[in-house]
Each structure stands twice: as structure tokens, then as C-alpha cells.
């Protein structure tokens, strides 16, 4: 499928850097995009894919670095400026105005005008031409919202394309499409590629990557892990690049797999939810850490949230310490001794404006009811205990959480979960976006908690982290649990092998 060696890149992105408070989203990433080539951009959540293309398409400003268009340095002040240079984005969620007609959506800000008045006849011709380019026939006077998501996606692409388009950027265009719709979209992409348009394609479906792409780039933690032609990178290599980072020595925590696991604490039988995760069986035992391995979109987070009750299951049974739990909700789960540390600690885990002490006490307070206030003296004692036990770097518990580093924030999340003295602790991506030292601390902590008899479930996109901490590993692929590994069976290669097995797309 490779179109030979193109002569010169259309776009060169040079050492792009972008920082958000507390996170370095892009750390000097360089990328080239060639005309007539489909370039797949891969990586886990927070790897920097979306930030990269937002900078490319003028939706975000970079902090440092350069963008060269056909060899000339450019600086897009807005999406409109980028589009004027022939770079057309189609963002992750379909970005159209649902209440407006297809016609108006296709011609918004583009309709031909005469004396300041829109020529609707000209606009109609333009809209029809845009749809014809993709071989679509629609009633253009109907609101876009009345069509299926797949059609809306195609309308968004039709809108993005015109005669001057040199580059089409697609962020997860296939996330909401079924197989036949994906095939139709790919036919269109192949046609566009043949016309010399550079296509950037973000996805997490490996099958689709191999079906359509010419070149692959993998990003991780804001850095480029590798770039190569599709023929040069095997599926195994690709998965390794995405999740198989070697742990440094500090992080590789010595670990003894002696526990066969104590009594079952939480048992899931056939728990699942339609279109979210296929039914699965899983048992969490006291003093045992279970790892959840899988690629982005495989259902790691969903499994964790189903167990916690943050996503409501529509099948299966869940028993906790011998009692059946029918209606799960986060509040019930907390009351039963299940604690959850979510993936995105900024939006779901911590209240940044509150102090460390207030954040830690939050879940205890929730557990014992809002009317029975935790005494201030007790609050201080608990906060100080936690700060000491987890090694949170702070003078005292009265520091605002938003002023802490990522690693220390994560420790506060853990402290908060632990303050409610749970029996089961579910951690989703406990080490995302934190530095190496803190990383090692957290892993050690996970082992310590385990030894104290807690049942742990750790979802992670870092394979070696799972290998280092887990007594048992549940492997997920395509929103289903495909198997369990125990003891000596837990190695990088076995897990990658299982994930790569045969990718359902």
C-alpha cells in the first residue's frame, strides 16, 4: 500500500513542546507528514495525539518548536488560518451544528457571497459538489442531527474537503462507525490519498491501522516512541511500542509471588454491559493484586468502573464479602468497602482547590454521612498519618492539592481511598503522568498494601508495571476479557502475545 518514497514532506513539525499546568503534554516531538500518504498516529490516552493535531490545525498554540508547511515556517493563529492553507481537520466528536441543515453545515463561513449577501444558489452548488466528492446523496435541507452518526461523520469530512485541501486530519473517525461504514470511509480515504492528499489518522484500532496506513507513529507520555512504514512494524512491535516500556531500575520493584491469595473478597460473575464490556468473571482476593492489561479502548477502565459501580452493569452478579450486591452505585460501593482511584485525577479524583487534609477526609465523611462531622482533631491526625505513611512531600496537610506535583497528587488520591479503610481498592492508571521517582514509590506502595491484606485491582497501560505488581493478570481486548494469567505465566511476552492474538478491529 505504500506509495513509494515521497520526495518532500508537506508538513514538518519540529520539536513541538506544549505544557499544561503540572503536565508536559508534548516534549519536543518532531513529525513529518507526506502528501499522498496515510499517517496513523497511535498512543494511549494522554500520550499527546490530540494535542499534536490541535497544534497542527491551529486549535491550540504551541509553547515551542516550529511547523513548516512545504518547507516554509508557518504559524496558524486559528483553525480558520490553518484551513485557509489547506489543512482540514475533522475532530474526535463530530463537530457539526446538529440543529442546522446539512446545507448550512457544509457551507458555514464558506458560502459564496455577493455584496455581503449569501448566494444560496451558489451555496447549494457548493454543498452538492462537496457531497458528490464523497459520492454522497442527502437531502441537504434536513438538519444534520436527523442523520446517523456515520452520515454525520461523512458530512464533517465532506465539509473539510475542498479543491485546495492538501491535508486531512481525522481524530478517531471510526470510533462510532460499524464495519461497513468503516469500509466506506476507507474507500473514500484511499481515493483522497490517490489524489495526493496527506491524511493523518488517529485511531486505537490496530486492524484499521494495518488496513489503511502507510506510515505509523507511536506517541507515549508526550514523546515520540517511534515512526516507521507500516510494512516495517509488526503488530507485536507496535503493541510493545505502545505499552511495553522497560521499567528503569528504581521502578522495578523486587517482588515475591508467594501468596496464592486469601479468601475471595469480591466476585464478579458474568458482569457486563452492552456496547461497553462483554460479560466477564473475576475474583479479587485479600492480599492479592490483579492487573488489568489491554490497549486503549479494550475496556480496562470500563471493567474497573463496572466493579466500582460508576458504570451500571446490565448483566451478571456481584458479591462482596459473601453478600450479593444488586444495585451498584459509587456510594454503595464505598459503604461496602470498595474504593476507586480514577484514571483522570484532575477531573474525577481530586478537588484541586481544597487542601490535602480536606481531600483525604472527603471520602471518610461521605462514608459516615454528612451530618456526623469528622472531628477536626481526628482530621489532622488522619491527614498526618497518611502524609507520613505515603511519603507525600508537603510541609503539612494544609497545602492546596493543585499546588502538588503529579506524583504527590496521586498519593493524595491513594490516601483518600485508604482513609475510608477499604477492603477492595481499584486503581485506574495509578502512575500516569508522574515522574520516575514517584512512580517507584507508588509501585512499592501497591505491594505494601497488598501485603497488608487489601484486595487490589490495578488497570494500567504500562505493561511492565502490571508485570511488576500483579499476582494475577486479566487481559482485555476489544471490550472483552480474553483470559487470565497467573504466577510465572505473567511476562511481557505472554501478555503482548495474547493482546496481539487476533485483533478483532
Amino acid at each position, binding site marked *: 500500500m505504500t506509495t513509494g518514497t515521497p520526495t518532500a514532506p508537506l508538513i514538518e513539525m519540529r520539536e513541538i513542546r506544549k505544557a499544561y499546568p503540572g503536565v508536559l503534554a508534548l516534549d519536543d516531538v518532531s513529525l513529518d507528514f507526506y502528501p499522498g500518504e496515510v499517517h496513523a498516529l497511535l498512543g494511549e490516552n494522554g500520550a499527546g495525539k490530540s494535542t499534536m493535531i490541535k497544534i497542527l490545525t491551529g*486549535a491550540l498554540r504551541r509553547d515551542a518548536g516550529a511547523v513548516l508547511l512545504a518547507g516554509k515556517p508557518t504559524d496558524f493563529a*486559528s*483553525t*480558520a488560518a490553518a*484551513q485557509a492553507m489547506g489543512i482540514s*481537520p475533522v*475532530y474526535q466528536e463530530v*463537530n*457539526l*451544528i*446538529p*440543529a*442546522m*441543515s446539512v446545507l*448550512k*453545515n457544509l*457551507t*458555514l*463561513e*464558506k*458560502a459564496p*457571497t455577493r455584496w*455581503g*449577501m*449569501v448566494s*444560496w444558489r451558489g451555496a447549494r452548488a457548493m454543498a452538492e459538489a462537496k457531497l458528490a466528492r464523497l459520492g454522497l446523496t442527502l437531502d441537504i*435541507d*434536513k*438538519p*444534520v*442531527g*436527523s442523520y446517523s*452518526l456515520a452520515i454525520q461523520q461523512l458530512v464533517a469530512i465532506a*465539509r473539510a474537503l475542498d479543491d485546495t485541501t492538501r491535508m486531512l486530519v481525522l481524530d478517531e473517525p471510526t470510533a462510532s462507525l460499524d464495519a461497513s461504514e468503516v469500509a466506506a470511509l476507507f474507500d473514500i480515504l484511499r481515493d483522497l490519498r490517490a489524489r495526493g492528499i496527506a491524511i493523518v489518522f488517529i485511531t486505537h484500532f490496530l486492524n484499521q491501522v494495518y488496513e489503511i496506513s502507510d506510515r505509523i507513529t507511536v506517541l507515549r507520555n508526550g514523546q515520540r516512541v517511534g515512526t516507521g512504514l507500516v510494512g516495517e512494524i509488526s503488530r507485536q512491535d507496535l503493541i510493545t511500542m505502545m505499552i511495553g516500556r522497560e521499567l528503569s531500575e528504581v521502578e522495578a520493584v523486587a517482588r515475591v509471588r508467594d501468596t496464592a491469595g486469601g479468601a475471595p473478597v469480591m466476585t464478579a460473575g458474568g458482569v457486563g454491559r452492552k456496547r461497553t464490556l462483554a460479560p466477564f468473571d473475576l475474583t479479587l482476593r485479600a492480599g492479592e493484586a490483579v492487573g488489568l492489561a489491554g490497549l486503549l479502548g479494550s475496556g480496562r477502565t470500563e471493567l474497573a468502573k463496572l466493579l466500582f459501580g460508576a458504570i451500571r452493569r446490565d448483566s451478571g452478579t456481584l458479591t462482596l464479602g459473601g453478600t450479593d450486591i444488586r444495585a451498584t452505585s459509587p456510594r454503595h460501593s464505598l459503604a461496602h468497602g470498595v474504593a476507586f482511584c480514577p484514571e483522570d485525577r484532575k477531573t474525577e479524583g481530586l478537588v484541586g482547590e481544597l487542601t490535602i487534609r480536606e481531600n483525604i477526609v472527603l471520602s471518610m465523611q461521605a462514608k459516615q454521612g454528612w451530618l456526623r462531622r469528622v472531628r477536626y482533631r481526628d482530621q489532622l491526625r488522619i491527614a498526618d498519618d497518611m502524609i507520613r505513611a505515603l511519603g507525600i512531600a508537603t510541609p503539612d496537610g494544609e497545602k492546596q492539592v493543585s499546588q502538588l506535583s503529579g506524583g504527590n497528587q496521586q498519593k493524595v488520591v491513594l490516601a483518600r481511598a485508604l482513609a475510608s479503610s477499604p477492603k477492595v481498592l481499584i486503581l485506574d492508571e495509578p502512575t500516569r503522568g508522574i515522574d520516575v521517582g514517584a512512580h517507584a514509590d507508588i509501585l512499592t506502595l501497591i505491594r505494601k498494601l497488598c501485603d497488608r491484606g487489601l484486595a487490589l485491582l490495578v488497570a494500567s497501560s504500562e505493561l511492565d508495571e502490571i508485570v511488576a505488581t500483579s499476582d494475577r493478570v486479566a487481559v482485555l481486548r476489544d471490550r472483552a476479557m480474553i483470559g487470565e494469567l497467573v504466577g510465572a505465566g505473567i511476562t511481557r511476552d505472554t501478555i503482548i502475545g495474547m493482546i496481539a492474538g487476533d485483533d478483532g478491529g
Partner: protein
Amino acid sequence: MNRHYLPLIATIVVFVTLFAVGGGMYKNFLTTRVLGNILADNSFIIIAALGATFVILSGGIDLSVGSMIGFVGVSMAVLDRAGWHPMASALLLIVFGMAFGALQGWIIDFCEIQPFIVTLAGLFLLRGACFMVTLDAVPLRHEFVREFAAAKIPLPGNGVLRSSALVMLGSLMIAVAIAHLTRFGTAVYAIGGDRESARLMGVNIRRTTIQIYALGGTYSALAGVVYALYTSSGYPLAGSTLELSAIAAVVLGGTLLTGGVGFVLGSLFGGMILGLISTLILFNGSLNSAWIMISSGVLLFAFIVMHRFLVGTFNLRGTA
């Protein structure tokens, strides 16, 4: 047929029904004379509502309308005393209205503050300015004011279209053209429909927001001019709470307060429905005028509930 016309059609049906009910209750009600009077008496509300329609279509709100009407009125009266021709002062104040609206729009976008608060500040500021200009009612004595009030076009039957109604109908045509024949008009609908998508689709949010509130300010100022000429005086309390009547007219006209769905033409009928209710109650003669407010309130409730139903049933905002 496009389901987005449903709220507009409902408005027109209510207007025609109310008018017919009036015809059944009172002799001489179903005449061009009553219609002409409703148009003339409510022309300033409708003009203000036209500008407010754009603001509300974009998902915003403008509370400074009534104060703008008052400020323009007293300023015209004071300039009239100073010897200005009303047309000259009208032009100056309309330009002021545009600039003031543009400033509000800029603050809303640049500082990312809710339009409610920014225009509430505008409301206080302009009302205060009214009292700085004058504390008393000041008459407009220029010859032109009488000429303006006297100008009219006869309608079939013995009704007339007064000059204020003509100005209103002219403004309506311009507003309809802006809404449906310019890129700006489409951008207003787009921002109201989904602001973030509109931005990603290349709509210049800042420029459009400034233009929306500038247009709102322009129409408010024009409403103030018509009000001053119609009443031939300026009074610092004039136009109090008129911003709310304008919003009511827009909502009765079928525009969704959440933005993105509605028609400028609807605000004409919305304003006329408000006028029709007061006319109906005044025709009765024995009813307390409090009933005007009460029935307007009931009707507004009914409309909002109906909108809710239409939006839900026909998925007007298209969010599946």
C-alpha cells in the same frame, strides 16, 4: 416541511386565534384599525425584540435593552432642547447604541463572562446615565416629531400604518435579511447551536459575538428613537423592564432560549401577541390592567412548556 418551523407556526396560530377570539367578543375588533394600532403601539418593543432575537439565537441574553431605550429617549429630548434635529440626534444615538453593544459583546467574549452579568451591568450603567442626563420628563418640541407622528399609510378598511409601524416593518425586513442572507446570520445560528463546534468549523467567535451585541445595541437604540418620537418626550424611567418584554416577545415568537433554533419573523408575532393581549383586556374596559401581565405570564408559561414538548418530540436541537 422543516420541523424547525413548528414553533413559528404555533406562534402564528396563537396570534390568529387570539385575534379571532377578540373578534367574537367585541364589535369592531377584527379590523385593520385594531391591527394598525397594535403594530404602532408595540413597534418599539418589536424593534427591540428583533435585536434580542439575534442575541438569544446565539445563546446569549441582553438585559440592557430597556435602559438603552430610556437613555436614547432622554438624550434625544435634551439634544432637541439644544436645537438638534431629531434625525441627527437619532443617528448619533444609534451609532452610540451600536458601539455600546459592541463593547458589551467584546467584554463577554474577551473576559469570558456570562452575557447575563455583562448586560446587567449595562442595564445599571445606562439607567444611571439617564438620570445624569435629566431627572425630569423633557418634551421633544421639534416640528419633525409632529410630522413623524402624523405620517401614515392608509390600509384597506379604515385602519392606518403609522410611521413607527413602518420603521418597525423596515427593521424587520433588514433583520430577516441579516439572519438568512448573510454569513453572519448563519454564524449566529451556529454559535447558538454548538459554540465549540462553531469555533472548530472556523467561525470567528469573538468577531461574531461583538457583531451580535452591536446589532442588539443598534436595534435597542432604534427602539429608543421610535419610542421617543412616538411619545414625543424623554423620561429617565422610560423603558424600565422593557428588556423583559422583548425577551418575552422573542420566546413567544418561537425562539429557543438555549439558542440555535428560531426565526426573526417569530418575534414580530411574539410582540404582536403581547400587544393583542393588552388590547383585548383594554377593550373589555371593566378588567383591571393587572390582567395584562397575568395573561402574558400564563401565555409565556404555556409557550415554554410547549417548546419543551416540541424540542423533545421533534428533537429540534438535533442532539440525539
